[in-house]
């Protein structure tokens, strides 16, 4: 085990019991985070889709006859707030700050989310297969997404450093060769 001292999770009001084995991510210094350029990548990605959509909505607000004018402009304003301000400018750094992952020999422990943070535990022997995806934009930023498939669904690690993703995939692939119990 890479971490010896069990320490309480910062959000939790309760320390793990002495005989309860701590999770890999319980030790804050063990947590791996995303590179700083990931936030920029997310920003560019969100704006690339958000700006055209908002432009279209504004065009519609100016030219359309129905629905009534206040409703048209409300929709356009809400789209601007949601797609450009929140998704494009505010959320990416928060999303990057909230995200961490930690891989031990037995488990993958990770946390993600902006409004609702979700911490997920994937026991290593549940891993069915792994997938890395990388678009043209991600390629420019040297980031990739790693998808961990289990019988119960997919867990995604978005915006990882490309080489790190390849390393992690190899590591999980090597560790996951255990018995299944589906």
């Amino acid at each position, binding site marked *: 085990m890479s971490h010896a001292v069990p320490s309480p999770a910062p959000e939790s*009001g*309760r320390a793990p019991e002495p005989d*309860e*084995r701590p999770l890999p991510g319980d030790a804050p210094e063990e947590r791996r985070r995303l590179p700083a350029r990931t936030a920029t990548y997310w920003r560019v990605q969100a704006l690339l889709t958000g700006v055209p959509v908002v432009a279209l909505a504004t065009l519609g607000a100016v030219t359309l006859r129905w629905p009534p004018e206040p409703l048209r402009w409300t929709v356009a304003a809400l789209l601007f707030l949601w797609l450009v301000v929140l998704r494009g400018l505010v959320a990416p750094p928060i999303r990057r700050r909230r995200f961490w992952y930690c891989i031990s020999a037995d488990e993958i422990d990770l946390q993600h989310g902006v409004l609702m943070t979700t911490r997920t535990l994937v026991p290593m022997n*549940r891993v069915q297969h792994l997938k890395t995806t990388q678009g043209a934009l991600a390629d420019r930023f040297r980031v990739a997404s790693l998808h961990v498939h289990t019988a119960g669904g997919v867990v995604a690690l978005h915006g990882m450093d490309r080489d790190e993703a390849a390393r992690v995939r190899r590591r999980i692939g090597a560790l996951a060769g*255990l018995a299944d119990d589906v």
Partner: protein
Amino acid sequence: MGRPDGAAAADGAAAAHTAATAHTSTATDSAATALGSAATGGAAATGGAATAGGAAAAGGFTGAPAPPGGAARSGPDVAERRLHPAYLVISAGQTVRTLLPAIVGASVFPHRWWVLGATAVLVVAVSVIRWWTHRYSVVHGVLRVRSGLLKRTTESVPVSRITALDTFAGVVQRILGVSGITVQTPGDGRSSTVKLHCLSASALAQVRTALTADSGTGARIGIDSGVDTGADAGVDSGVDAGVDAAARTAGRSVLAAPLSRLVQGVEGPGSVPPIAVLEVRALLVAAVTGTSIPLLLAGAAAAWNRARDLLPDSTLRWIRHEVLDHGGATTLVVLGLVMVAALVAVVLTAVRLARWTLVREPERLRTTRGLVVQRSSSIPVDRVQGVRLVEGLWRKPLGYCAVEVEVAGVAGGQDHQRTLYPLVRRAAAADLVRRALPELRWSGEDPVPVGAAARRRYPTLPLVAGLALAAAAVLLLPGWWRLTALFPAVVAVVAARGQVAAAGWRLTPDTVTVRWHRVFATHTVVARTRRVQLVHRTQTVPQRRAAVAGVWLVLSSARRARLRHLAAADADLLLHVVGRRPGAVRPVAAAPAP
């Protein structure tokens, strides 16, 4: 048993190949030799296991295929063979059904008889080719199904991977004395299902014996179910053989048979006494309370689509005109039609659930049911990840619930496969589960409600959603339609009350129990603590301030157990214990104080 050396290698490969999906289909476009295509298709699917199977099966392929329903073999293998010739009829029926709109359309043309004649020839040709190219075998613990003439498909399913067997016999199949079998493996629904449509009674018994004799292979390792997997294969096949003769009589004499014989099922319960049989009174309650509005709407939509394909346009226009453009009497007619539809739905549900019988065999759970289409499901106990008690909208006030099993690969839209028993008193459900699945070691104790701080937060979401919908209805709808805004508001209040009352959990070393209420139904999931696939712990900023968090357990059936709010410390406890390897599980006998 005298298996060749390849068998051991095949089993080992199947066991070791954990990261692969259980079955794949591979197409080879060229008309390769049988051995070549088997080797390429099989190797991709299951590694060494299928290759060994393919090499052995090639001999059977070059020789004359065994006649369907041939003499029973002593070993668990089934040599490669075709389906029962009755598949010709059923395959033709399926083709005609898909082509029906085209046929109806073609019959308007002047040369309709030529067109219809050509279509008939085509249908017959397609059926014959389908039957001729469709072959199956069970060799060295691998079920292989090969089909297709130009696009050849090979599906390989290691027997050790099978999560459920489902046999069925529709009206046509019963008249012809055959039945079909569905093989379920872990994976996402349709692509993880292999179907053999037509098997004679003896072939069915043989295939089932071959597919259920997984005990001796030692392919399952690292399981913690507490079941002795090394025993009882003989008992299982003995039951199958005994059932064989009965099934044949039931199938063949279907037209002359009295009702009692008809409802006997494709395979009767055999010598093992059933755990529960659905009585007529319970059947009626189940049918009336189990007919959901979605089912009703789906039935109506399907009927309307069929009608659109079949009815001439003028009739459709007349119906639309009558129904949509008039008030008064037409409304009454529509109401009457809805009542008739409801009645039909209840009758259909009753026919589907009739004679529901639950049998516990040494290593399997078997259910048989159905009056017209007879179905039988068989699930290895070892594959059961947990049970789910569903108390629906009408059943909860009456004190009834349905019992479902959580099995990998049996997820959405397959109610009949995952239902263990359709209606039981909630108070008696624990006893039923204990008798059917003693391995689950469920104490039957109710979950302990979440703390007050967490309980207070449950009404927010349904009330906000309901009020938003109601507000939208008031703003957007004209005139009296605004009264429909009452509907989401009432539903929201009812759902909020239900969610507050239901939220609870309990953790023991063997099982984790989560009870929660969705919109209409209360679900209680009792899962094997160590077999939960994924655990999510969710928290929003307001939840963090109140030291509350959510927990979300995902089972290998891809179905969830979700508690939106509970004390953050409890959520952490669940995250640290549920789904982890045995070493990580600390006995937590007592649930948290309410």
